[in-house]
């Protein structure tokens, strides 16, 4: 038994050392596998970044109230009377002044110009209530100040300011006939709110002729468990009939569709490319076996078994695959990790997000590479193991 493993080790060492002789063919396999991994990981990093930005935006103890069936904020409408009923609803936390901690909000779409492409894009303008920023976690004004109530002032999210033109501190932006001054920039801990423009609810309502109408109500709950109380309160009052969700659940729903789509595009493409890479790897390994036919046959003639020849060939293939996989992961990390992109999100507005690789995704990429290496090495390895000695000795 021990001698078998010694044989395996010896043949594997010979195989790996001889890679240098076939450096161009081996290199092409490594690069082919690396490219497969890059394509897969780029897609997965995109889906992951999008998912994190949106899913990371919601809290469990914040309720978001929408019109039943509306699915996204943009489609929802909630009347002033309904807002009052929610204020008095159960499970809603109250501030030190005894007032309910809620924020009625109006969500409008305005145009902005994307810096990179100079094309028009849909940006969200959110009119928020007094408690608006307090109801979101990690909101900090990084420069300038918060807008003052009742004025045409806006604060903009950090990500939005970076991606779209004309939102510098102190500048004036106009949406149709209304003009607004940018007085502050806020950081929202990388959440989707960083892609938004915020202004005072009442001002937005009057300047956009949406008096008495809001789209959503956000409320701080006394605890995550209070959500059900508020839900049944809404379900049982015929004047309400609203969808009550936790903010976390709402954003999880919003994120799943787009990131699913990206993944569904990424995996089939990567698999199709992987098939191409398998063909390349098979080719490399068959050539490797052919090139070493005499060598293998000689080893067999002096008493080495078929198994070491099999393992040696497979090990060579797997080594090339691992190198390719790691190279691909490293390249993806260098090229794509942290790249900022934006696309249309569930609310029909731009969501700015960063490509984000994770160790788990890198593992997926390397596993795909190993599968390519395994399949690409398996058949040539079988051939090496079964090579008739006499034929091998006369090869070339």
């Amino acid at each position: 038994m021990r001698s078998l493993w010694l044989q395996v080790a010896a043949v594997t060492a010979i195989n790996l050392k001889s890679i240098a002789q076939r450096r161009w063919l081996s290199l092409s396999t490594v690069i082919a596998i690396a490219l497969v991994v890059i394509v897969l990981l780029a897609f997965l990093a995109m889906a992951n970044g999008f998912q994190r930005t949106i899913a990371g935006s919601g809290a469990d103890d914040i309720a978001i109230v929408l019109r039943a069936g509306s699915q996204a904020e943009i489609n929802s409408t909630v009347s002033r009377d309904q807002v009052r009923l929610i204020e008095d609803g159960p499970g809603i936390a109250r501030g030190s002044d005894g007032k309910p901690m809620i924020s009625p909000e109006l969500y409008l779409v305005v145009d902005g110009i994307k810096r990179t492409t100079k094309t028009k894009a849909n940006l969200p303008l959110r009119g928020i209530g007094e408690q608006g920023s307090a109801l979101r976690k990690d909101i900090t004004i990084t420069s300038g100040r918060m807008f003052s109530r009742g004025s045409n002032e806006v604060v903009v999210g950090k990500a939005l300011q970076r991606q779209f033109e004309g939102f510098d501190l102190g500048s004036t932006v106009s949406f149709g006939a209304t003009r607004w001054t940018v007085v502050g920039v806020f950081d929202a801990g990388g959440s989707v709110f960083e892609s938004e423009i915020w202004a005072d609810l009442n001002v937005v309502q009057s300047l956009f002729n949406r008096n008495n109408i809001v789209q959503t109500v956000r409320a701080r709950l006394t605890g995550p468990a209070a959500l059900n109380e508020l839900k049944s309160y809404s379900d049982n009052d015929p004047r309400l009939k609203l969808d009550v969700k936790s903010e976390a659940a709402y954003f999880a729903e919003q994120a799943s569709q787009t990131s699913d789509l990206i993944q569904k595009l990424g995996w089939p493409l990567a698999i199709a490319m992987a098939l191409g890479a398998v063909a390349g790897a098979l080719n490399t390994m068959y050539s490797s076996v052919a090139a070493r036919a005499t060598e293998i046959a000689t080893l067999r003639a002096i008493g080495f078994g078929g198994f070491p020849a099999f393992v040696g060939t497979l090990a060579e293939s797997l080594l090339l695959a691992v190198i390719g996989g790691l190279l691909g992961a490293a390249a993806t990390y260098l090229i794509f990790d942290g790249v900022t992109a934006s696309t249309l999100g569930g609310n029909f507005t731009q969501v700015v997000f960063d490509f984000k690789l994770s160790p788990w995704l890198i593992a997926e990429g390397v596993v795909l590479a190993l599968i390519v290496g395994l399949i690409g090495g398996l058949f040539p390895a079988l051939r090496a193991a079964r090579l008739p000695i006499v034929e091998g000795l006369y090869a070339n």
Partner: protein
Amino acid sequence: MNDFDLVRKNLFRRKLRAVLMIVSILIAFMIFGVLAGFYRAFTAGEDAAAADRMITVNKINFTQPMPIAYFTRVRAVEGVRQVTFANWFGGYYQDPKNFIMALAIEPNTYFDVYRSEFEVPPDQLQAFTRDRGSAVVGESLAQKWGWKIGDRIPLNSNIFSQKSGGHTWDLTIAGIVKGKADHVDTNFLLFQYPYFDETRSFGKDTIGWMILQTTSPENNDRVAKAIDAMFANSTAETSTDTEKAFGKAFAAQFGNIALIVLLVAGAAFVTILMIVGNTMALSIRERTREIGVLKTLGFSGPRILGMVLGESVLLALLGGIPGLAVAALIAMALRTSLANIAPAFAVSPTIILQGLVLMIALGLITGIIPALNAMRLRIATALGRG
């Protein structure tokens, strides 16, 4: 035996290797075909846009409404042949997941403006304009739900509510709209704006966007300026643009699809190019002696060059053509399930032509270095080797 036979025999000398090459190339062109088909589908709206059609939207953003009074004012602008308008309804059928692209439209002018795309039998169109509570549905949507003329369907809105409190509008199907060309998407439902406007609980007397047709594309600029100037400094300023520009700007919002396509197809191509190029070089090296013999027999350098290039081009075509065929099959299979996002998903003749050019280019690029080496090979060196 002519040169082609030699090329063919050389290519399949090592059958397994040839098959593997063909499979890699097949996959590369399958990816190319599918991605190009997708790309075409995403940009189809842009290509299909009529040159004389323009869209007027609220300047703030196209999701913001404008007063219905604008409709008659735009109609009076010189150079405008016809105007119609529509309003987004946010429709769904039975469950919010069953999204339906539903619009409340101006019934008398809509199909005039879109006459080059849509076809409604005259009697059905008449029935539609006569009955306020009726709707026309696109062929593919009708097929999806099995709707027939005369059916009454409840259409829900995820935005609007009825004055009476509900979110459901009951509509009678008066007609089925057919697309006049294969890329025209017929996954929609259209119903009468007057009925919608008088029953909805908010937003009365506003419309979503206007579609207008100019008397000639040369008038586009002038008409756009005249319309936008007319509403300047009003509460709802407008922005008028050609349908093409509008569609392009909208498509750009999804992120740069063209770039992704280029990136992926490019990566796949580089991979395949490398594999094929390497193998070609390898197989020519193996045949060094033979090439020496051919030269001794009097084959000229250029003739050898042609034979080697012929081999790599043949290889590319043998893999590439079935690859495009597979892509076409995939496109056909996915077409119905992707009808919502990419209605014109297909491998078009243009894509096939581009594919063929790429195959020949691939063959030439992968073959050129081994071919040049073979051509320059000296007989003495060749025969002395191996």
